């Protein structure tokens, strides 16, 4: 009886650790990576850093949650300063006029092997619905900070022209693959 009570209490405590808990995004381990066809010759890849955000995971009530991530388009990095300057210009990300980029979910569905996120991506002053596929997720205690930590990888493909980036089409691809890696702790 005591053993059963112990297991029930443990499960309740562990479950409450993940039940609708809010995690603060760690900008040092949260990024958006992108890939675009470069003139059809190869794929150009780059990274955009995060400035913050938060997410919740609720494994008790319908395996749902929410996520809100802020990105800094001026931090775009493709490994080449001059190309990065070009990407920041009005030709592409137009960071001086649109310094903010973000993703905010409207619904999250978690499954045993990932899940999906419905939400809105705001980029270059335009907000459009974008779905993410969660490809990996893990929650646990961080080995160094000892804080409860969760992280997930999500991916999607968008058309940059939908957000107003028309320059260079079709030579520079319209399809833009996005990978968003998020980590946070509470």
């Amino acid at each position, binding site marked *: 009886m005591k053993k059963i009570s112990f297991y029930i209490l443990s499960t309740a405590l562990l479950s409450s650790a993940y039940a609708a808990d809010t995690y603060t995004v760690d900008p040092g381990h949260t990024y958006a990576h992108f890939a675009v066809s470069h003139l059809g010759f190869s794929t150009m890849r780059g990274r955009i850093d995060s400035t913050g955000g938060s997410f919740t995971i609720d494994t008790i009530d319908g395996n749902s949650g929410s996520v809100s991530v802020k990105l800094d388009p001026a931090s775009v990095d493709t490994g*080449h*300063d*001059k*190309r990065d*300057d*070009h990407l*920041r*210009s*009005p*030709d592409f990300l*137009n960071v*001086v*006029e*649109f*310094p903010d980029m973000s993703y905010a979910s409207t619904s999250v569905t978690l499954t045993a092997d990932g899940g999906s996120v419905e939400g809105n991506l705001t980029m*270059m*002053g*335009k907000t459009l619905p974008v779905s993410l596929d969660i490809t990996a997720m893990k929650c646990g205690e961080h080995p160094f900070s000892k804080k409860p930590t969760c992280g997930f990888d999500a991916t999607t493909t968008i058309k940059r022209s939908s957000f*107003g980036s*028309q*320059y260079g*089409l*079709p*030579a520079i691809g319209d399809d833009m693959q996005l990978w968003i890696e998020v980590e946070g702790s509470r």
Partner: protein
Amino acid sequence: MNLLNLPEIQSGLIPFVSSLILALVLHSRWPQWSALSALAGFYIGAASMGVLDLTPTRSANRIFLLGLGFVALGSIVDIITNRSSNSSIRQVCNPIGLVILAIVISVAWLIYSPLSRQGGMEMVGSLLSAIAWSALIAAGLLTLDRQPIRAYTAITFLALAIGICTALGASILLGQLAIGLSASCGALLLLACFTNVQRVPLKFIAVAAFLCAAIGVAGVIFAKVTWLTLLLLAGVPLIVRLPLPVAWPRLAQASVVSLFAALAGSAAVSLALWQSAQSTSYY
């Protein structure tokens, strides 16, 4: 390869040919409106680049809309300056001065929002520099309205130099827009060499001056053009005023003025090239 996707077609051939054809058609029947063929060529070139859209609101499409606004303003000023019965209006206010003021205000409005995020003395300095440069360009071009060869040469080479400097900076889009303006105005320069055009309507110069000023300043704010490069570019509308023998044929006048305008523009382009050469190309 689709030829329409080549930048030299979008910003060179398309604006030049469309401007020339429209100018030839309009020149015989409505000479006062033939200069607007260059603006049509500019907008057609922008459309071929796929950037002539209105949403989301950003500096590029504000430039397109304001350009159309200046056609209306320039048309009103043309009416005022052409009618001697309106001399009382001209005693009260200088119509060309009003256009210059409108250009300066428009350019300042265009860049105020992104500059306001900087704040402080950096914002004030950039705003004052933009106002000063816009006023210089507007005054330099608008006062050439009665000298068509010099006016068209100044606009052609100023826009070309702005385009090259901006493309070397960080924005090929802004550069192509300016080069498209240059190409379409070049068609008018060619026409002026072989016709008896006596005056450039202000409805065209007002728009051309605004576009040159706006794209130049946008190059500094949104790309990586420097204020020093713009200062050198301000020499183009000045150097076209060099004295020329009146008896020279128009083609000869245009050739000499173009040579000097190209020299002035190339000084700015050389500076932009040197600054751009600090890092390797990635094309």
